[in-house]
């Protein structure tokens, strides 16, 4: 097996614990002044990459772990976090504040990046918790023509050159195998991401971030989907609280008639 060169695309999103609010103009979710962090599934991707190296799971060794983010200047924060977790270096495609990219555009950026960086394993989150599209990984695999394993809960390297991946699917799990190069997307059960330690956060400040722009890739931020409006979902009204089972059953019967 050739040495593994891992590319880990990560995204800066509104923190998962924050309840997002739609802006007054109903054009988007309010992001100004809201706590942001690394997309939780991307933390799993970084963790898995670092573990592959630490546990010497890849027979050919891990030559490079490069994290990538396309986002506003502050996306550098999540790149630093990833490097504090153990990534070697970072690429930042800087996008203006308030702009975003569609998954297809991100997949095209990553297609070029993977080729330039000679990556042979790309580990992404299965979806970002803001747009919930779940597209970038399979789109990228399609553009590259590589094997893909989505929603991975286990990744094993064999001596025979095959990478065997257990995927979470509707109703259970499915196992597939492929030789590198391949694209893997991570699911919750893959690992428990580590916290970056203070010394590692300090060390990460010295690791290199290559700054680029869309123009460097010859890619424009084309929007195929025009957002016409963003609204709050209809609010549910909490109903009655009861203290005993009989009133609970009575109320349920009443609701069942109405529903």
């Amino acid at each position, binding site marked *: 097996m050739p040495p593994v060169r891992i590319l880990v695309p990560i995204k800066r999103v*509104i923190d*998962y614990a924050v*309840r997002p609010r*739609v802006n007054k103009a109903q054009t988007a979710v309010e992001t100004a002044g809201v706590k942001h962090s690394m997309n939780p599934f991307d933390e799993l991707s970084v963790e898995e990459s670092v573990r592959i190296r630490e546990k010497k799971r890849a027979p050919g060794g891990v030559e490079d772990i490069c994290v990538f983010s396309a986002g506003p200047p502050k996306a550098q924060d999540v790149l630093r976090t990833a490097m504090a977790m153990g990534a070697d270096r970072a690429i930042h495609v800087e996008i203006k504040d308030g702009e975003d990219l569609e*998954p*297809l555009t991100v997949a095209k950026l990553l297609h070029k990046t993977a080729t330039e960086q000679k990556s042979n394993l790309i580990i992404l989150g299965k979806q970002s918790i*803001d*747009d*919930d599209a*779940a*597209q*970038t*990984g*399979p*789109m990228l*695999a*399609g553009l590259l*023509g*590589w*094997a*893909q394993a989505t*929603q991975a809960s286990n990744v094993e390297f064999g001596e025979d050159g095959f990478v*065997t991946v257990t*995927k*979470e*699917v*509707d*109703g*259970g*799990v*499915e*196992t*597939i*195998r*492929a*030789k590198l190069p*391949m694209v893997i997307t991570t699911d919750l*059960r893959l690992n428990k991401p580590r916290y970056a330690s203070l010394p590692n956060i300090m060390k990460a400040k010295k690791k290199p971030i290559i700054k680029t722009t869309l123009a460097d890739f010859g890619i424009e931020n084309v929007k*195929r*989907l*025009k957002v*016409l*409006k963003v*609204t709050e*979902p209809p609010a*549910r009204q*909490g*109903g*009655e*609280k*009861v*203290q005993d*089972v009989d009133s*609970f*059953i009575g*109320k*349920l019967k009443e*609701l*069942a008639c109405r*529903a």
Partner: protein
Amino acid sequence: MLARQFTPLNRLSSLRIVSSLKYSAFSGSRFLSTIAILEQRDGQLLKGSLSAFTAAKRLGGTIHGFVAGTNVSAASEEAAKVDGVDQIIKVENELYEKGLPEVFAPLVVENIKKGNYTHVIGGHSSFGKSMLPRVAALLDSQQVSDVTTIEDDKTFVRSIYAGNAIATVESSDSIKIITIRGTAFAPDTSTSGSSQIVEGVDPNAHAPAEWVSEDLATSSRPDLATASKVVSGGRGLKSKEQFEDVILPLADALGAAVGASRAAVDNGYADNSLQVGQTGKVVAPGLYLAVGISGAIQHLAGMKDSKVIAAIDKDADAPIFQVADVGLVGDLFEKVPELTQKVKTK
């Protein structure tokens, strides 16, 4: 693409569209044609995938179904019986049996090109999620994921931020690829149709990945994604044994499917495939009964479209009570067995 409407093949199909205009909800859908990607397992059509036909009928225009695998005759015949479907395209080839996206996506792409479809619809299932974005990339189209409402042939509604916001988007792609949320489009199981079954094109592409095995949870209980009642357990159950002792009898007494919160799954009380939420299944049953679930936003994303939400939790301030139509405040280890008993003897 521009030349498309002048090809003889398309002129033929546009004639057909006029006859099926009665299904069209919108004007201007004269050249609209949809291919609905169906799923099968061991030759059995997955009923849930028939939601794609329901969504296709919202678009109007001609509707073709697509199914591929080892032995798909029975599945294609069943799909051909759905009302308002114009044609079923089938491809018999072992290569496609397990739905590996590396070969299934090029197969779908070739059949889309051959049929000049304007719309491609599949379920936002694990198969749809892994295969259709690959198709979209190969066709240079920006997919619209997990659509809950189709407003017209280019305007779609979907939830973002774990269901905390609803976005209406308009697609400018010439081939619109969408995955749909099954619970928002009831599967069309009508059986009085009689569409023609034809062989699709088969590119027989090289597979860079191979299928090894699967381990699917078998259960006599209703399927979580489509059940009319769901009983879900959370962290409050405290152990796998107690989850099984408390939740399963209640689910069985109600004839309900079993679900779980992420906390219950992460702690090993329940199988991963039972997780309800942003990162698990999205359900919308008639009754959702949450037991020992606090109601984090990621969980609510998976169940807040249920018709009736009921909750049992000892913490009267738990967020779940803000969305529950009825809440029972109390110790679940006392209340649930009592409830189970009373449901049984009713």
